Each structure stands twice: as C-alpha cells, then as structure tokens.
C-alpha cells in the first residue's frame, strides 16, 4: 500500500457518491431525455441501479479477496505476471483517459456559461492544480475535505430542486412508457456507466478501516446517488419537458436560471458553479489519486506522489487534443463511453474475479 491513509465507511460512501454526482447532474438530464423522452427518470431509477449493483457485487467481492492491496497490485498474482501487468497497464491508461474527459467537461461548462473570454486551458489548469494538491496529500485528505463539501453539495442541489419544483408540470411525464421499455434502457446506458464509476472502489478498498461495512457503503452510494440523480432528471423533465431538456447543453444550469420565487429569489445559477467547482475538485482529486496509484503499482514504484503531476498534465493534453469541442465530448459520452465503460467496470473485474475463484487466489470469505 503506497498511501497509508485510512477512511471510514461514511467517507467512502461520500467519496463514491461524489464521483457520480459531481459531473452527472449537469450532463445526464440531456443525454437521458434525448434517448428516453419523458421516461428518463425511470432510466435512472431502475436499470442504472441494477447495473451499478452488479458492479458493486463484482468489485467488492473481488476486493475482499485482497483487502490490503489495490487492483493493479494483485492482478499479477491472480492472472499471472505478464497478463496481469498488461491488464494493470490498460486499467491505468483508461483511468487517465476518463479523467481527461472530466477535466475538459469541467472547464467547458464554466467557459460556455460564465467566463466566456478565459482560455479553456487556464480553467483546466486551475481546476487540476487544486486537485493535484489534494491527490498528493493522500486519500485521507480528499476524504475529509469531501466530508465537508458533500453535505453542502447535497443541500444546494436539494434547495435548487425545491425552489423550482413549483414549476413542475406533471403532464410532462405522460404518456408513460409510450414506446415501450427499449428507450428507457437506451436512456440508461450513459448514466449507468456514470454511476458505474464506483468501480474505483477497487483502488479505494484497502483504505477502508471497517471492512465489514464495505457493502453498506457501496450499496448506500448506489441508492443515494440513484435517488438524487433521479430527482434531478425528474425535475428537469418536469419543468422543461423532455423535448426542451434534450436540446439543452447544461440542463441543470438552465433550470437554476429559471428559478424565480416571488420575483425576488432569482439568478441562482451561481449555486451551480459553486457545486460544480467544489464537486469537480473532489472528483478530479480522487481520479488523479487513483490513476497515480494505479500507475505506480503497475510500474512497481515506491512513491506514487511523483506521478500525480505528470498524470494531471497528461489528462489536460489528452483532453485538449481529443475532446476540444462540445460535440467530441458528447459523442464520447453517449456513443463510446457506455460500451467502453461496461467493459472496464464490469467485464474485466468480473473476469478477474472468475479467475481468482477458479484458481483459489486471495482470501476466500464466502467459504
């Protein structure tokens, strides 16, 4: 273990919830409404939760076999040295890749809506710099920081929903399941892999101080994030209708701009910015930390901290080359990421788990 930090199960729950909610609340309503229409909220409530529960089952039972090692550390032990290192390398690259999309998302939102004249590179660097600092301080620092940020984040989000809920038109949810279940499943694809990002529990598990409460934390996240993201999508569709929601770039931001209580309480979109920046820094911190740990363990380094900076720099470079425009981000999120994420989050850990069970590797808790 390269990081000596310890986190409680509540901190783990908050960390995992933040990984989904920090970015999902802004992008998911549009992507879901496009595919599932008025039934978008069902997508988030049922199929996504089922998928995320599968990921939890696979990843936690795999992690339980090596409770004090991270995924990339025990891979060679399970599948053999060369294939193990290969999978570990791929996993590390994937982590860096998806983090680069997050960096881009974060900066693009602020640039489009608020700081239109600031170069996107500056925004990316500022966000990444803070996250790099957090990541190099270790998981415990991120977890404690998040313990403070996450409740505020959740409170702001619920306040926004409460303030706008008087504008909900229930007709916007009808007709329910007009075109059957298929659109609901299609609408669930992107949000599913978004919540499936909790697969980084494979790297966070060793820090958990009460290993008994691992399932509670992971399933708690699936439920908590499920309820919150369902509420966000339902409110957006309820207020704007699925047709307009599908055309918005940042639906939650437009929703916050639409709030008007008695003509006095208006222009609350700044809440969104605060939530966005606070959440994104935590999320980037977690992913920078995880990616650096993964890289360090793959390369058998003794210190992961020297890798945090280079990892962050790589994400910014990849982000700017491949995801420089909005269409590239959205095409990736809605067309590539669902399949790609499914393989990374469920198929590979599932395969590794299967091999571990067959070869009787690690501690066998079930028996």
């Amino acid at each position, binding site marked *: 273990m390269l990081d000596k930090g310890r986190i409680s199960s509540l901190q783990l729950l908050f960390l995992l919830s933040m990984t989904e909610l920090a970015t999902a609340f802004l992008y998911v309503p549009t992507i879901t409404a496009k595919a599932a229409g008025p039934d978008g909220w069902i997508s988030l409530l049922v199929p996504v939760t089922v998928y995320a529960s599968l990921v939890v089952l696979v990843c936690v039972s795999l992690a339980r076999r090596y409770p004090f090692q991270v995924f990339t550390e025990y891979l060679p032990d399970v599948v053999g040295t060369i294939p193990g290192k290969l999978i570990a390398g791929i996993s590390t690259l994937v982590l860096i890749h998806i983090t680069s999309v997050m960096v881009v998302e974060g900066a693009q939102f602020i640039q489009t809506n608020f700081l239109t004249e600031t170069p996107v590179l500056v925004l990316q660097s500022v966000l990444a710099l803070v996250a790099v600092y957090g990541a190099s301080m270790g998981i415990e620092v991120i977890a404690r920081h998040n313990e403070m940020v996450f409740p505020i984040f959740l409170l702001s989000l619920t306040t926004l929903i409460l303030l706008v809920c008087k504008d909900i038109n229930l007709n916007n949810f009808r007709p329910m399941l007009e075109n059957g279940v298929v659109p609901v499943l299609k609408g669930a694809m992107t949000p599913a892999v978004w919540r499936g990002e909790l697969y980084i529990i494979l790297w966070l598990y060793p820090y958990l101080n009460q290993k008994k409460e691992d399932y509670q934390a992971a399933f708690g996240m699936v439920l908590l994030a499920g309820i919150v993201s369902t509420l966000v999508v339902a409110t957006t569709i309820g207020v704007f209708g699925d047709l307009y929601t599908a055309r918005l770039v940042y639906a939650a931001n437009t929703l916050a701009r639409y709030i008007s209580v008695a*003509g006095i309480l208006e222009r609350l979109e700044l809440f969104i910015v605060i939530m966005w920046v606070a959440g994104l820094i935590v999320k980037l911190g977690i992913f920078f930390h995880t990616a650096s740990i993964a890289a360090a363990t793959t390369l058998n380094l003794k210190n992961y901290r020297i890798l945090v900076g280079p990892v962050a720099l790589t994400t910014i470079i990849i982000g700017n080359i491949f995801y420089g425009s909005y269409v590239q981000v959205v095409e990736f999120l809605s067309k590539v990421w669902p399949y790609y994420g499914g393989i990374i989050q469920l198929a590979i850990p599932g395969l590794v788990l299967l091999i571990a069970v067959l070869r009787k590797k690690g501690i066998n808790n079930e028996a």
Partner: protein
Amino acid sequence: MKRDRGLALVILCVLLLSVSGCWSRRETQQMNLSTALGFDRVMINDKEQWHLSVLSSKPQGGGGTSGGSSSVISEPKKGLTVQVTTVSGETLWDATRNWNLRASRRLFLGQVLLVVIGEDTARAGIQQILDYLLRHQDIRGRIWVIVCQGSASDFLNAQPEFEPTISQEIEGIIRDTWYRSGKVIGIDLFKTTYALLTPGKEIVLPYMQLFVPPEPSSPISSNAGGTNGSNTGDTGPQGKSFTISGSAIFRGDRMVGHLNDEETQGLSFLSNNFHSGTIPLSMQSVQKNASLRIGGSKTKVMVGFDQGTPSISVTIKAQGDFLEEDDSVFHVTTQDFKAAEMAANREIESRCRKALTKSQTLNADILGFGDKIHRSYPQEWTGLKDHWNDAYPDLQVSIKADCKIKQTGVISDPITIK
C-alpha cells in the same frame, strides 16, 4: 509541517492574484445596461437584414444608481434616462456586434426583461429569434416575449405612462396586473419555446399596439410636439403610449392571426388561466347592463373518442361577485341570482366559442388539445399526429360554463329611482 505552511502561503499568494479579476474585467462605466430588445426583419437595398433595437438605461449623475441585482421595479428616478438604438446586420449576432460601430460600451443582456417582435417579422417566422435568445448565455428563460403592431424599433420608442421605462411598464402589466382584466396572456421565453416544440400545441403571445393618448393633459402627446417640432401632423412613436390588445396566434413559428380582447378572455377560460376579471352581462336587455367580477375559475378538459374520432368537452367552473347593474334588473332573490348566472354562463361560453372558432379557422391548435390527446391517449394519437393540423378545424368541442354568484358588493338591492 513548517514547509507545508510555507507552501500553502505561496499558493495562497498566487491565488490571490486571480481574485482581483483583472482578466477580461467589465467595469460598469464600460457596460450598457439594456432592458428590452426589439427584432425586425427588413429589406435594405434588396437584401434581407435584421434590425436589432436595444433599449438601454443610462444612469445619470453620480454612479451606482443602476446596480439592482434582481428585477424588482425600482422607484422612478429622475436621473434615469432611456435610449433606444437600432442597428442592422445580416444575422442577429452580426447586428449585436454591429451595435458597437456606434456605441462605445459593451452590450450587456443580463438584465433584459422583454423581447418585442414586430408583426411583419412574426408573420415571417420567429424561430431564428428564439434560437438567438436561447443560445445566448446572458438571456434567461423568464423574459417576456410580445408581438407589436408595426415595427419593434418604433414600438420601443413609445413612452411609458406609469414607470420610468417601457420594459418595466410592460413587465408590470404582464407579470403583476395581468389577472385583473383576464385579457392578457403572458408567456415567457421558455413557455414560447415549449409550445413551439410540443406537438399539438401552438404559440400565443400578447399583442401590443401604440396609441396617442387622447387626454389633452397627457405629457406624452405634448412631449412629441415639443422635442420633434418638425412633425406636427402625425406624431412619431415618441408621442405615443402602448396597450395590450388581445393576443397573436401562431401556427408553427409564424403568426397567423390575432385574437381581440373578448376572444383572449375566452382563451384564458379555455386554457384554465383565468384568475380574475370582469364579464359584462345583458339582463332583460340587448345592451350590456350588468357586470360580474369573476374571482376564480377552474377548467376541465375531457377527451372522448367516438370510433377513433376525438371530441373534447370543456367544463368551466367559475365564481364571482355581482357588481354593477342598470334599471333595477337585479334583486337579491334566488330567481335573479339564477338569471344572472345563466347570463354569465352564456357570455362566457360565447367568448370561449369565439376564441375556439377563430383558432379553428386558422388551423392553429393554440389550446393544446392535440397535446392533451397525446398525453392521455398515446395510442390513438399515433394515428392522428401526422395530420393533426388538418383535423383540428373539424374537432368537435363542447363548452359548458357553470358560474356561481357569491356576493353582491357593499349594497344588496339596487338603488331604485323613486
């Protein structure tokens, strides 16, 4: 520990530099606060051009008079002067940036309350205008959209009668006092877009006209002669004020017709949007000789199907106070209450019917009956949606009003002539 503290200090100092915000700063004296926008599509030298009219407030004298962060109407200030600038461009953004060919300030649209579209432009289609507004990062979904007779650039030059600026006055009419007459259907930018996107639902916007205030003491009509001495016969828009007169109906993004006051009231009833307002009645007479003030109304729309053909039945439940009469036609008796209620029902039904007939002759489903069918009967709608516009004029709609009179004001029986 010591080293960390030093590092933190350095980072804080570096971050402090970014807080001062010198990068792309906007000072208030370089900004132009605009509160209304007007859009016209015109032909200039055989080329189609957009006219963008911007109503801006210029704070005069000591600074800091215009900093209100919410759209609450401020007290009329003597120092606040209002100015309209009209610029042209090939597209709307072209016009927006061309504004700076004659203005030294930056156009700031975050405080815009009102969007005015000229009638001819509305008849040619408003999709591009809506797109421009929705795409703009400073414009919010709550701004009001109206259609005006004539051109929007003229309209914005009209004089408000009760507030410092035209945008505040119109916002007051649409947002704060619309329900007093029941003849105003206010709709914001988001709701306009919603009606444009939703199948089986068409846009209705408030329609406004200019008029010369007939009152001889009105400062507006005299103001026109004073400032613009050359033109005395026909006063320009700066000598006129404005009023809401009914609403504009659209089919798709094109305006196709106009509802007058009465029909707009009927439309408010039909769309369950009538909160308060007066209905003139005729009791034992051809003339309108009594008034009923409606205090609340609720409309239910039911969809029925007869062999695949939809029919709509609308029931309106309203209540109100009897407030005015002539020739002692109304006494506090059960019969007279019944008679007045019957007269009110007839009047409400006839107003609703007029609005409906007009929308059916124009093929514009402004009441959203198609949307209603879609939401309640999705299966039947699949057969209807492709030719809904053609089927709408033949839609059978039954309208039934049920009005209850509660009070009679401060006196009971009429003041009879001895």
